[in-house]
């Protein structure tokens, strides 16, 4: 399994449709990251990739009991690991 080594650089935008991941953290402390945290993207939160828009962007995610759309530029700020991997 190589995913354990890659997991440190895996970000939300890179996840394939249908996959599930756990948020590890967000880079930076700007207002954008603060907002993403307020939307529930904090370490430990489970995120599922529901689907991409017909034109490839944005993507619909499911987390904390609701559905959220993010563009790649914002999703790339969220570090995640695959759900099966240990913390």
């Amino acid at each position, binding site marked *: 399994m190589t995913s354990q080594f890659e997991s440190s650089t895996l970000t939300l935008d890179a996840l394939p449709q249908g996959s599930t991941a756990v948020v590890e953290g967000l880079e930076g402390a700007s207002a954008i990251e603060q907002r993403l945290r307020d939307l529930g993207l904090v370490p430990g939160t489970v995120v599922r990739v529901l689907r991409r*828009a017909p034109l490839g962007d944005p993507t619909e995610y499911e987390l904390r009991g*609701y559905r959220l759309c993010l563009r790649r530029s914002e999703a790339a700020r969220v570090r995640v690991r695959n759900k099966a991997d240990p913390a």
Partner: protein
Amino acid sequence: MSEAVLRLGLVGSPNSGKTTLFNALTGLRAKVGNYPGVTVERREGAATVAGRRVVVVDLPGAYSLTPMSQDEEVVAKLLAGELAGVPRPDAIVAVADACSLERSLLLVAQVLRLGLPCCLVLTMIDELGARRGKLDLPRLEAALGVPVIGVVGHRGVGLDALRALLGRPEDWSRPPILPPVASEERAAWADSVLAHVFHARPGRNRVTDAIDRVILHPIAGTLVFATVMVLFFQLIFAWAQPAMNLLDAGVAGAATALHAWLPAGIVLDFLVDGVLGGVGSVIVFLPQIVLLFTLIYLLDDLGYLARAAFVIDRLMGSIGLEGRSFVSLLSSYACAVPGIMATRTIPSPRDRLVTILVSPLMTCSARLPVYALLIGAFVPARRVLGPLGLQGLVLLGLYLLGGISALVVAAVLKKGLFPGPGLPFYMELPPYRVPTLRLLATQVWGSARAFLRRAGTIILGVSIVLWVLLHFPHVDAPAGTPPEQAARLALESSLAGRVGHAIEPAIAPLGFDWKIGVGLIASLAAREVIVSTLAQIYAASDEGTSLRAAIRADVDPATGRTVFTPATVASLLVFFVFALQCTSTLAVMRRETNSYRWPAFAFGYLLALAYGASYVTHQVVTALWT
């Protein structure tokens, strides 16, 4: 002295069911306005709960009290008591969707820290049950330390208990320990609370899942999107027409009645053309506004509008806007007035402003009579490409010129006027829900009333001023002059006629003479007015064939050349693509941006664009044609 009225602030995220709850508590007595200095909608309503008069304040939807948008800034400041001129609420009613508590508790945690008496209302508990979720409300109450009530807002379930609770906030329990501040710790706190109170977490929303499989499917979803957008366009463009004709007929009927009642003369003219004409140009928008908003609110409440934005976001993102701008710009293709009002669904104030500023560039239906006159008179009805005629191609070109210019200007404004990172794009896709008729009616009526009160008064005022310009000073034609000639004489000697002459040097480089100048001034009221004004100037007996023949035949007495050369016609068409010749649009801009600066800016930049583009067009066509 009587006890001061208790103010209750409803706080919750968008889609939390806050507005339904607000309507249920206050009935139809809501007062709608703006918060001082900003365009954020302010909604308050009086209610009597447990025998006590209270004011319920429906705060704008917010995901967090660390503000990102203008809406959220108002919420954060108001709750902190820092919003000048608006009192801090005495107690807070936090509103959260029972099915997405995992997310909502992050906001509730911030609200609990404010130190105001607080209670939590969980909406849509019926949906929680339908999704086999089980929540222990007494345990949640104990965990949070504040009263918790479950309701189904639109069915009135739980509202009696809520009213009884709202009447005595001084008795509400306060949390013994406040939730943590940092977002990671807040989330951990929310998770621990929920682990304690959920007997069963709500399952997936199967209905929403099933609908989304179609609505958001790459092919089916795109088709649905296209269908809905065509429907939008059709609605404003064509289906509003019968009602608009009916209103027009009503105004004409009133004019006939006035003619029967009053003697001919200046008073009658003023009442018929100035006042009644002004009233008519206000209410003629009502069918479009009511239809458009019925559809917008219906789709928004259903949950489709967010999906449509999801589908088209990438395209709008390429010019710096977002998916929600699309619906508004499309509506502006029929009429910028409802289009600008529709920008309220755009959360980012910058995106909203840019959308408002470019919406007059979308070719609205008021330009059609102008295009029809000029194209009909000067473009030969030749077939060029199979069934496509030259006239149709010119019309299509004008539509495209407007649409493409809007996109270019939007990209430029976004980069030039508002550089730097804006709001991050994030959008919730709420579960599909069927709105109640009552909610829909309240929303539509609110928009229609706002238009009538805020924009209507300005439109009426300006149309009266324009009437005065077109009628004073009044010169009586010698007896025996044919009525058409008399009308022309009166117009030429009026203030507007003089202004037309005065601006002739300025518009001559565009190929316009003083007569077109008067038409342009008159068309400030509404673009199509230039047609009836030209009919007056040319003393034409009708606005169709006779006017077309008259402008074709017009010859400048000084030079002996025709006035409407190909270059002048092209230049005038291009002028109408760009210029903001519409008082109603300016009035609605003034209302929606809450300032005179932005309508002035829009008018200025579009006039500059119109002048520049017309000048270039005139030069190019003159060079090509001779």
